[in-house]
C-alpha cells in the first residue's frame, strides 16, 4: 500500500511542475533555515568536545564588590484637620549601593576562598583572553592564549591530534610548554605535522609545543583559545596579586548534574562570607555561579542576571522559531488544501472501494511527508553548501558549523513534523467528504 501511495505522490508531484516547484521551494527554504539554526545551536549549545560534560559544570565568571548602606526614606504627608495643619510621616528602610565594581577573580581569591570546595568533584582555574601579536616573516599572527592549571584538561575533553596536555609537573615547574590548535599550527609553522616539538613565541617567552588539539567549535571563551599554556607561566604578578579582582575564571565539575545547585550554593555562600580588607570601600562580596545554559545566555545578554538572560533568549528563540515554522506551515497547509481538493473524485473512488476516513487521512499525510522529505533533501543539500560557505568565508571566525549526526537527526525530525503538521488539516478535511457528493460533482 505504501508503495502505491509513494508512486502516486511522485506522480502528483510531476503532474503540476510549477506548483510543485513553488511548494518544494517553500519547504526546502524553510527547512534550510531551520537546519542552519539547528547547526548553529548545536555548535554553540550542543554537547560537543571539548564541552561534552558541560551539563555537570558550574561556571564562575565575575566577582561583584559593592558598598551598600542602609538608606531610610521618610515620607511626610500634610493635611488640614479642623482648620489646623496636620502631618503624617512614614519611613521605609532600603539600601543604597553607592559603589560597585565587577570584574574577574584574582588567582589569589579563587585559590584562597574556593580552592577547597566540598560539593564539587573537580575544578580548574584559568585565565583566558591573552592576545599576542607575533610578527613572523613579515606576517602578523594574532594569537589568543589561555593559561590554565593541569585540571583544565580533565574538565574539557579536547580532541588531541598529537602529543599530550601539560601536566601538574609542568604547572609546578612553570615549564614553558604549550598545547596549540591545529589552526594555529598551520598559520605559525605552515603545517600541523611539523609543529610538535617546535618553539612558539608568546609574549616574552618561548614555549615548546607538546600537544596539538582541534579548535573548539564554539565562541565560548573558556575553550575558544588557540594556545594553552601552564598557569604558572603567566606574568608572576597575576598569581601573586592579593587584590580580589584579577583576570581568572573558574569552573567546577559536579559528580552528577543533580549536584549543580549544591555547588552554586556553596560558591555563593563562601564568596559572600568573604570580608573585603577595607570595608569602607566595599562591604559586600558576591558572585553569580552559572550552569552552562546560563553562562551562554549571560555571554549574549546580561552578565549580571544570567537566569533572566536565559529566559529572554529562550523566549526570543521560541518566537522566532515559531514564526519560521508557523508562517510557511500555514502557507503549505493552504497550498496542500487546494492540491488535495483537486483530487476529491479520487477520494470518492477510494472510499467507495473500501477506504475509510482514517485510511484517506493516512494516505495524504504520508504523501505530504514524502513531498516534505524531498524538500528536506534539497534543503539539506543547500544547508551543507551554506554551512561550507559560512565556514570557508570566516563570517563567524570563532565558530565551525557542522552538519553532523545530531543536526541530521534534528533535520529528520523537523521534516517529519513539518510534513505531518502541514498535511494533517487538509487531509482531515478531505477525509470527511461524502462519497456520493464528490463522485457526482467531479471528474478524474
Amino acid at each position: 500500500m505504501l508503495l502505491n501511495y509513494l508512486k502516486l505522490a511522485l506522480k502528483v508531484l510531476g503532474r503540476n511542475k510549477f506548483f510543485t516547484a513553488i511548494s518544494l521551494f517553500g519547504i526546502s527554504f524553510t527547512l534550510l533555515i531551520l537546519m542552519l539554526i539547528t547547526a548553529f545551536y548545536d555548535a554553540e549549545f550542543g554537547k560537543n568536545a571539548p564541552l561534552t560534560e558541560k551539563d555537570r559544570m558550574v561556571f564562575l565568571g565575575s566577582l561583584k564588590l559593592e558598598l551598600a548602606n542602609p538608606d531610610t526614606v521618610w515620607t511626610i504627608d500634610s493635611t488640614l484637620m479642623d482648620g489646623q495643619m496636620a502631618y503624617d510621616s512614614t519611613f521605609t528602610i532600603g539600601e543604597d549601593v553607592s559603589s560597585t565594581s565587577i570584574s574577574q577573580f584574582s588567582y589569589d581569591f579563587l585559590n584562597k576562598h574556593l580552592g577547597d570546595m566540598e560539593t564539587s568533584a573537580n575544578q580548574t582555574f584559568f585565565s583566558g583572553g591573552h592576545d599576542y601579536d607575533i610578527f613572523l616573516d613579515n606576517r602578523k599572527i594574532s594569537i589568543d592564549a589561555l593559561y590554565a592549571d593541569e585540571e583544565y584538561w580533565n574538565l574539557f575533553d579536547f580532541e588531541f591530534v598529537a602529543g599530550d596536555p601539560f601536566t601538574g609537573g609542568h604547572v609546578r615547574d612553570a615549564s614553558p610548554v604549550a598545547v596549540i590548535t591545529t589552526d594555529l599550527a598551520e598559520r605559525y609553522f605552515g603545517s600541523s605535522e611539523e609543529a610538535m616539538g617546535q618553539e612558539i613565541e608568546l609574549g616574552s617567552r618561548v614555549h615548546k609545543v607538546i600537544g596539538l588539539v582541534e579548535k573548539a567549535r564554539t565562541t565560548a571563551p573558556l575553550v575558544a583559545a588557540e594556545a594553552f599554556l601552564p598557569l604558572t607561566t603567566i606574568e608572576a604578578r597575576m598569581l601573586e596579586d592579593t587584590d580580589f579582582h584579577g583576570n581568572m575564571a573558574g569552573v567546577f565539575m559536579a559528580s552528577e548534574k543533580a549536584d549543580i545547585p549544591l555547588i552554586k550554593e556553596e560558591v555563593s555562600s563562601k564568596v559572600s562570607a568573604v570580608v573585603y580588607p577595607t570595608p569602607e570601600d566595599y562591604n559586600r562580596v558576591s558572585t553569580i555561579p552559572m550552569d552552562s545554559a546560563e553562562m551562554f545566555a549571560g555571554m549574549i545578554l546580561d552578565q549580571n542576571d544570567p537566569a533572566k538572560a536565559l529566559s529572554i533568549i529562550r523566549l526570543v528563540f521560541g518566537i522566532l522559531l515559531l514564526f519560521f515554522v508557523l508562517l510557511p506551515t500555514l502557507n503549505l497547509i493552504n497550498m496542500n488544501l487546494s492540491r488535495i481538493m483537486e483530487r476529491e473524485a479520487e477520494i470518492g473512488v477510494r472510499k467507495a472501494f473500501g477506504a475509510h476516513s482514517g485510511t484517506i487521512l493516512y494516505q495524504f499525510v504520508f504523501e505530504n511527508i514524502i513531498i516534505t522529505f524531498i524538500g528536506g533533501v534539497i534543503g539539506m543539500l543547500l544547508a551543507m553548501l551554506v554551512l561550507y560557505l559560512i565556514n570557508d568565508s570566516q563570517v563567524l571566525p570563532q565558530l565551525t558549523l557542522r552538519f553532523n549526526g545530531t543536526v541530521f537527526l534534528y533535520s529528520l525530525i523537523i521534516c517529519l513534523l513539518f510534513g505531518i503538521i502541514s498535511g494533517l488539516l487538509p487531509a482531515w478535511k478531505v477525509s470527511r467528504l461524502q462519497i456520493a457528493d464528490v463522485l457526482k460533482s467531479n471528474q478524474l
Partner: protein
Amino acid sequence: MLTLQNINKVYRTDTIETLALNNISLSVGQGEFLSIMGPSGCGKSTLLNIMGLIDEPTQGQIEVAGQQIADYNSKATARFRNQHLGFIFQSFHLINDLSVLDNVELPLLYRKVGSAERRRLAEEALEQVGLKNRMRHFPSQLSGGQKQRVAIARAIVGRPDIILADEPTGNLDSVMGNEVMDILLRLNESAGTTIVMVTHDERMAKRTHRLVRLFDGSQVQ
C-alpha cells in the same frame, strides 16, 4: 441478496426540500441482473448510491448480503463495501496517475492481501476483460471502452457479491457499449455475480433479467 424497504430520500437546502426517492421497496435476488430506468433526475443514481452504501437514505431500511446496514459512515461499512460491493461509474473514475494494473489493484489495497497476490488477482481480472496486455498503460492512453473495461476489472477484482453499475455504457458508442454489456452479462452468467445497472438505454435494459422504472422518485414498474 439486496433488500430495500420503504426508502425515502429527501434533499434539503435552507429553502427547498426535494423528495428524490419516495417509499421505494425493492428486492434483488442472488445472481439477478436488474436494470433501473427512468428519465433524468428521477432518482436512479440516488437509489443506486443507497444500494451501494455510499449515500444514506432519509428513511427506510436496507439489507445487503444478509446484513442490516445502519451507520453509513463507519469503518465497518467501508469494510463491508470493500468485501461485498463493486462499482462501475459512467465516467469511469479511474485514477489517471496510476497505471491500469494499479487502478485495478485499488480495492485490494484495503484488504490484507500481499502485493504478489494482489498483482495476480488484478492480472486475472484484466484478463477477464481482455486488457491484460494494457496493464502497464495509463488511463489517458486508453479509449473510452477500454477505460470502462478497466473499471469493470476494478469492480470484479475483489470478487464482490453485487456489482452496481451507474450508466456503464452512457459515455460509450454503441459498439463499445455492447462490448461492455457483453462482459457484464458474461460475468453475471458465468460467475453468478448479482448486478444492478442504471441505464438510459432501452436496448441494454432489455438484455437484463428484470427492469425497474422510476418516475419522480417513485417506482412505477
